[in-house]
């Protein structure tokens, strides 16, 4: 195969490599159980396999991109199963949208894996970690490449599986096991909706093929009810995966996994899936405007809601987690406003920045013996300058400080909202912008600036396997925003790349306003957390109620826990008890007992006395004769 022929048609290789790496590690490399000569090489071999696979994938991405630019989108599929007249297939579709995701995923995954080399060093399940990592990445890649909903759903679920295994990687920790379960179950509830939505579309069109479905939808082949229903159901699926309110609860807990995993999940894989799904299915959503409005509303709620919580979290990873939720809300808001390009743009910008932040926080944890409480830290910029600097860049990007990536992408989103949605949306969104700048400033300043707070912490800079990815991501976080502009004649900006005729434009007042708000947010952060002009403790005591609500995350976890403990489990126990007491002991054993009791009664007729027997005989004869005579006469 010459290099020229490598292109879209071989895009399937990218996820396949990851899957192959998974199986290879699990079934071949790990088979060298302790004792064999190669046993001690198992970790390094596994890591090498995994990184090689994803690295090759990243390499292939460039070929695919080149091919796409040359010859436009393409797809192809293989037959999976036939039943009756129904043919189901597996297939991939490479278009501009998927290629963006492809690049993002392979890139972030590659960096995270390299980073993990240092971060996970010496863990007994090192090999397993890389295996699952490969699987996770492969699933996500398959998801973005899927050309039909069935395949998409399959990958979607496998992403869920990967997240389950990765979040629960430290399964000896009860909290990790619980978090993994929570993530899987919560997203699975969304998946119910997704699956039903997909099946509804299948029922209406008889196919899972995206293009065919879109075609049918545009041709009016699907009733409006079905469209609305399936759109909302698809969105429920997306809400689960993308941690939209009220399905967001799993994401903060997912911090229980290794930090690089969080980076991967938050930046490019799992949570991006929901956004990607809605983006991918936009032709359907556009035909269901009501649903699109719902998407916007949910996105907005999530955006602000999560930002408020992020303000008070004291765990560095939790702050980042709520920030992720918040930004995912922003992306949904953008999608709800119909601007796919802005959403994906923000996805990329946020992905890069958030990966950077997580890897940075991982670096901090690595340096501080896995501490995550921000008030334990402080003044770290002195001992770990690279980490601190890159982290600040990432934070600034997400805070929306120009000219970093986050600024451009957020601006794009706001513009979309302004154009397509009620002014209320933009007002609330702008408040959210200020909030996100504030909490980003808070976490960055508290951790890295100021003075050392906990004498027990002896931090040090991390090894190069960790810092190099940080630097790379920082560079991107600075630069990636500029892909928004149309630099050449053929490249009409990111919007143009994603949507035919899509154009990047500016509305100056909004841009300026959002920049001001962002900077104001950072400034307030500076005043409160660095200069100490205003005591954050006093604010907390002044607004104690609000603070308590925020710290307790609006009690939503408690509500869910209550529902599960007091409603679902109680109901389940009731059913179990019902089964035993009513169905089994009463219904089944009862009828058995009835038979047995009647047998007990009956046995006393057999009195053992001769004349009883005789009387029965004579009465029997008489009765038989009467029956015969009377009944038959």
């Amino acid at each position, binding site marked *: 195969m010459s290099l020229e022929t490598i292109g879209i048609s071989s895009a399937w290789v990218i996820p396949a490599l990851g899957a192959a790496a998974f199986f290879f590690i699990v079934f071949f490399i790990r088979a060298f159980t302790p004792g064999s000569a190669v046993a001690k090489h198992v970790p390094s071999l596994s890591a090498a396999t995994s990184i090689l696979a994803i690295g090759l994938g990243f390499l292939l991405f460039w070929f695919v991109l080149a091919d796409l630019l040359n010859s436009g989108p393409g797809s192809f599929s293989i037959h999976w*199963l036939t*039943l009756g007249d129904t043919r189901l297939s597996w297939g991939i579709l490479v278009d501009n949208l998927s290629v963006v995701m492809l690049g993002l995923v392979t890139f972030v995954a590659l960096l995270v894996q390299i980073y993990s080399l240092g971060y996970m060093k010496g863990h007994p399940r090192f090999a397993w970690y890389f295996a699952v990592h490969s699987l996770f990445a492969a699933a996500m890649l398959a998801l973005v490449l899927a050309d039909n909903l069935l395949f998409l759903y399959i990958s979607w679920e496998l992403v869920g599986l990967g997240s389950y295994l990765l979040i629960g990687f430290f399964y000896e920790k009860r909290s990790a*096991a619980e978090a993994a379960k929570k993530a899987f179950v919560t997203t699975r509830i969304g998946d119910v909706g997704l699956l039903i939505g997909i*099946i509804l579309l299948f029922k209406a069109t008889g196919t899972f093929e995206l293009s065919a479905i879109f075609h049918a939808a545009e041709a009016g082949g699907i009733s409006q009810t079905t469209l609305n229903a399936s759109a909302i159901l698809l969105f429920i699926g997306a809400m689960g995966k993308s941690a939209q309110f009220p399905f967001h609860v799993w994401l903060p807990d997912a911090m229980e996994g290794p930090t690089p995993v969080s980076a991967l999940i938050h930046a490019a894989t799992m949570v991006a899936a929901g956004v990607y799904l809605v983006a991918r299915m936009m032709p359907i959503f556009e035909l269901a405007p009501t649903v699109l409005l719902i998407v916007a509303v949910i996105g907005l709620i999530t955006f602000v809601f999560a930002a408020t919580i992020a303000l008070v979290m004291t765990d560095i990873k939790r702050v980042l987690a709520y920030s992720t939720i918040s930004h995912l809300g922003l992306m949904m808001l953008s999608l709800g406003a119909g601007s796919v390009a802005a959403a994906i743009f923000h996805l990329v910008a946020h992905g890069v920045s958030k990966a950077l932040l997580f890897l940075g926080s991982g670096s901090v944890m690595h340096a501080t013996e896995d501490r995550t409480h921000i008030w334990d830290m402080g003044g770290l910029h002195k001992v770990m300058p690279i980490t601190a600097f890159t982290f600040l860049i990432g934070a600034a990007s997400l805070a929306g400080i120009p000219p970093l990536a986050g600024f451009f992408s957020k601006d794009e989103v706001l513009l979309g909202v302004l154009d397509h949605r009620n002014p209320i949306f933009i007002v609330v969104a702008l408040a959210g912008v200020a909030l996100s700048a504030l909490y980003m400033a808070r976490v960055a300043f508290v951790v890295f600036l100021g003075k050392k707070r906990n004498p027990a912490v002896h931090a040090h800079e991390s090894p190069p396997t960790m810092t190099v990815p940080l630097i790379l991501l920082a560079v991107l976080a600075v630069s990636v925003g500029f892909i928004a502009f149309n630099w050449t004649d053929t490249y009409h900006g990111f919007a143009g790349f994603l949507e035919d005729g899509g154009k990047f434009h500016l509305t100056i007042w909004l841009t300026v306003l959002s920049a001001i708000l962002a900077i104001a947010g950072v400034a307030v952060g500076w005043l409160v957390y660095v200069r100490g002009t205003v005591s954050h403790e006093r604010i907390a005591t002044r607004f104690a109620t609000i603070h308590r609500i925020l710290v307790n995350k609006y009690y939503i976890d408690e509500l869910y826990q209550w529902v599960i403990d007091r409603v*679902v489990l109680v109901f389940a126990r009731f*059913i*179990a008890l019902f089964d035993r007491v009513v*169905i089994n002991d009463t219904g089944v054993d009862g009828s058995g007992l009835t038979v047995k009791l009647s047998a007990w009664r009956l046995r006393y007729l057999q009195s053992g006395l001769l004349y009883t027997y005789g009387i029965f005989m004579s009465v029997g004869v008489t009765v038989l004769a009467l029956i015969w005579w009377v009944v038959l006469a």
Partner: protein
Amino acid sequence: MTMFDSYILFIITALPLVGAAVMLFIPAHRQDIIRWFSAAVALVVMAFTFYVFAAYDHEAGGFQFMRAWNWLELPGPWTLGSQGIQLGLGVDGISVPMVMLTGIVMFTGVLISWKIVDRAKEFFILYFLLLGGVFGVFVALDLFFLFFFYELSVVPMYLLIAVWGSSTDFKTFLRTKEYSAMKLMLYLVAGSVLIWIALVAIFAEAGLGTFSILALQEIDFSRNFQLIFFPLLMIGFGILAGLWPFHTWSPDGHVAAPTAVSMVHAGVLMKLGAYGILRVGVFLMPEGADRWMPLLIGLGIVNVLYGAFSAMGQRDLKYVIGYSSVSHMGLVLLGIATLHPLGLGGAVLQMFSHGVMTALFFAVVGAVYDRTHTRDIAMFSGLAKRMVVVAAFFVVAGLASLGLPGTSGFVAELLIFLGLFQTYPIVGVLAVIGAAITAVYILRLLAKVFFGPLDERWKDQTDASPIEKFSAGILVVFILLVGLFPFPFMRVIDSGVTTLLARITGAG
């Protein structure tokens, strides 16, 4: 068709029975011989079932590998009395996967039972009898023999459970193995009461003087007859398939049974019920089936949800699996009840999938129980630390059970859902939700039992033995194989389902 082909079904059915007979003459203290002999027989049988699967011509479809021996003439004025009762064997696209499933579970079950020391000889004899019966049902093309083998598969159950089983004893809840064995036995035979009545009624109504399914399928039974007798078959076979509210034998029985028997029973025997509904009910009385399916839909969805919630409410590890079988068999029943190619195909695949998966479940739970001697979920924590492989197997089984893509469970459930949405969309929604509930209790179990900090009590536990790994590995391979490449399975199933549905459209 070669000579060998025409005898292969007979050989598959007869080998376990002959094996049981041969074992009668092996001295009981030579347990090593008994084990290796059993394993060898099971391996050969499994190989033959693979051959049947591979050699089945899915393009031609219909019944293949057929052979019939006249067994008993029935005197009377009928046209086919000289055929009377025939030992007629043959498989179609529906039974082929079932035969293979039985072969797989049989072999793995023998391996899992390697450790049985107490009266091993009797155990394997009864075990083989059981499997001979199961094979017989799947390959019989004569109602008498179908029933014969059906009952045969019930016969050894009582002893297998009551002698080698284990009782459940919590402070508030006691189920002795004797009770469970008795209930299981009586229930299954009670189911066969209805079946039996329906069978003789079919014989009498047809007036052909034969029990041959091939001959009977030519008869158009009157509508009234079908309406009256189809429910008998549906409930009768349904009992074996765990149909709500006649399901309570199943969790109790599975829990009390020894590991291999649970595997066979939940894995294969429950399928006999669903298979019977298809082969006898739907096949011979398509019109009745068409009319009565709403009831089955109703009961089936109750099965799914009720079984799932019951599973969630259990304290005993094995009971969770037992109730999950009830839930999953509900999906099979739903698939059947759709009478739609997708749903039916899904149901058949789900039968296979659930068979393999639940066998794996019971193998794993058995491995845990063998080591810890308790099944109280509250007693466990963090077992994965000591039993990585066992935990991994449990994860695979659990994922298959909650219908994760890449496992067989997904393909099957998906097809059932697709079929359901074509026919009963609301039920489809409920069924999908039921599948999601599965995720809840399976993951809860996983998190509680295998994950978390290791309980001090179990710090000396050992992981799966090589033989356990091997047998469970076989099951895992099939779970993944079907999940990833359902194509070769589905084309066989498709050929069977198509023929079956042609009868319904023809009748209705």
